[in-house]
């Protein structure tokens, strides 16, 4: 799939290179800012894992890992303990008040709406907030982990991903052509180029990365994008 024209049809040069936006770390930093004080948060494998490193104790965030931990502070530098890992297999440190539970109880938490926010990676997000993030058709098979349950159950779903693929194709599209994780589940998309809200079944630009114009974001977005008057530059 090539980048199709966005809502404003600005993409004229299909051989253009996407602008250089935020690093993975800065995407994670911006995603961390999206978390409300005192909330319970699950971080997906990959980029979202980095978010834990950008949360301050004063933010009072409690991280949940679907393998059965509530209350880890981040990736551990201590000696590896095979029984103390997050869902990505990385060693973690605990905070006071942490607890352990089995997978059934973990998904009671997730599916039951007890997680305030989940930050997951994405392959594609559609204009109405459908998410595809578990199956690459060219590779087949897939790895879904807890993504489908998190997409359905988390009160707020934040997708942190690169705005376009390595081949320069938009990941934000009118309709996902990758198999879905869940329908109409995404609330916010945070990329190297922008912060976009999924609102009333459509996409609305909230912030741009430093040096990126709203028009550039629209250009590299494969779906209609509302650009309000008050689009801000991300403060990082």
């Amino acid at each position, binding site marked *: 799939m090539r980048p199709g024209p966005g809502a404003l049809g600005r993409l004229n040069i299909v051989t253009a290179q996407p602008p250089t936006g935020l690093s993975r770390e800065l995407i994670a930093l911006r995603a961390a800012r999206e978390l409300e004080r005192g909330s319970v948060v699950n971080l997906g494998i990959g980029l979202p894992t980095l978010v834990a490193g950008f949360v301050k104790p004063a933010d009072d965030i409690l991280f949940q890992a679907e*393998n059965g931990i509530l209350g880890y502070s981040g990736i551990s530098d201590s000696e590896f303990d*095979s029984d*103390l*890992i997050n869902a990505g297999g990385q060693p973690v440190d605990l905070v006071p008040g942490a607890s*352990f539970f089995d997978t059934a109880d973990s*998904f009671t938490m997730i*599916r039951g709406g007890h997680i305030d926010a989940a930050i997951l990676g994405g392959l594609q997000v559609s204009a109405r907030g459908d998410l595809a993030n578990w199956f690459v058709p060219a590779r087949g*098979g897939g790895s879904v982990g807890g993504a489908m*349950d998190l997409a359905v159950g988390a009160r707020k779903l934040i997708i942190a991903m690169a705005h376009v693929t390595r081949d320069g194709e938009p990941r934000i599209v009118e309709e996902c052509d990758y198999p879905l994780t869940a329908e109409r589940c995404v609330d916010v998309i945070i990329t190297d180029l922008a912060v976009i809200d999924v609102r009333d079944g459509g996409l609305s630009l909230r912030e741009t990365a430093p040096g990126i114009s709203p028009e550039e974001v629209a250009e590299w977005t494969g779906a209609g994008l509302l650009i309000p008057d008050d689009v801000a530059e991300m403060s990082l």
Partner: protein
Amino acid sequence: MDVLVFESADSAVADVVDGSVVLVGGFVSAGTPSNLILALKRGGQTGLTAVANNIGLGDLLDELCEERQLAKVIATFAIRASGTRSSRFEAQYRAGEVELELAPQGTLIERLRAGGAGLGGVLTKTGLGTMMAEGKQVLELDGEDWLLERPLRGDVALLKAWRGDRQGNLQYRLAGLNFNPVMATAADLVIAEVEEIVEAGEIPPELVGTPGIYVHRLVQCDPVPVRWDG
């Protein structure tokens, strides 16, 4: 009733028959019955269906693919979205030599729980409108759609706990619980490897993660270091 204590992981799994459905506890490195998996590899049983959270690069479960012991895998992590190296399982899957049924984690655990708890199924929203709903019944109740997920049981469950007592009570360590306590309820033959075997009563009643009545065989093994690579 006292549990049967086996001298070795090999003897504990020796009579697992070809074609068995084997539930395998653990989540990546945590609570994974590494010694029992390796014993199954040495045992050479074939045509197995493995039910486990993950079969990725570096997973010991992938070792069972070396001699093509697995006919089918039901898992939540199987084929990575990116990366150049691939697991044995992945290669055999691409060659059409092993079947894969992927399941959302919360659905897999509920299916196993239903299998252990005498329930005929559960209704979930997870998977609605996705490939996971293919071939499954959707119920509309009070105007809402729900996906019906049916129970899943094993012939055998391989578990890992920290300590086990002579009645089979298991105590887990840290995040070592994961799939183990539910899988313990959902198989006809439950085999657990533990780091230490203690007398009944040494595990405080509040810390028993799996009551002994679920466990049939116990074997003491030193843990095998696991390093996951997805």
